[in-house]
């Protein structure tokens, strides 16, 4: 089993800043990108708040780690699933999220969207297809 490429899913269900989980999940994703596994990220429940644009942490004197999400494309992490129902319950739309992209080497470095909004039912299927699910 150790030689095969596995499907890794990072299940992000928490808001940023209130707890450190969101940030540390991102740290694992970045480290994990070096391991040549097939990686995707799911944002559901309060996890959708992690990638809301316009975060400014100067007033709480914490580090704003949200710009790091923009770097994920450079690490070939470009499968970000965001749950539609979770957005709606929180009064959000995709326009409230950061515009995260990656450049497709196979198509002359065309810029493509990393985020795909999926339904709850689709996300359930995506979870099912994984080999490993990280929860924080």
């Amino acid at each position, binding site marked *: 089993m150790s030689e095969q490429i596995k499907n890794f899913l990072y299940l992000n269900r928490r*808001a940023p800043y*209130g707890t450190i989980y969101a940030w540390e999940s991102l740290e694992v994703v970045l480290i994990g990108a070096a391991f040549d596994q097939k990686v995707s990220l799911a944002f559901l429940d309060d996890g959708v708040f992690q990638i809301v644009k316009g975060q400014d942490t100067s007033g709480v004197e914490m580090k704003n780690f*949200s710009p790091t999400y923009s770097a994920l494309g450079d690490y070939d992490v470009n499968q970000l699933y965001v749950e539609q129902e979770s957005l709606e319950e*929180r009064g959000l739309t995709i326009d409230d999220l950061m515009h995260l992209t990656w450049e497709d080497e196979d198509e002359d470095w065309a810029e493509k969207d990393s985020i795909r909004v999926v339904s709850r039912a689709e996300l359930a299927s995506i979870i099912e297809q994984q080999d490993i699910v990280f929860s924080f």
Partner: protein
Amino acid sequence: MSELHTVNKSPFEKSSFNSCMEHVLEGSAVLLYEDGVYAAIKGTAAEGKVKSAQGVKFYALGPDLSARGVAVERVTDGVEIVDYAGFVDLAAEHDKVVAWV
């Protein structure tokens, strides 16, 4: 006695906001901070609870709203935005603080 209730958890993740709302009396105040500020967003189930609370003043901590990218125009009408100094003032002005941690 007048009470300042504080809520620091997301209303979508934990029941503390709802529990606070079920125990808050007229003439009291509720301060939303940390992930609790998500209860101050328009267009959510929490908005309804905030609007229907009779005679209760609502506050949200500005630095926590900004950290989470919640713009002022998304904040439910009637919720006043304060900073940490304002949080201190609220704690001093009310007879006690009840934390719904």
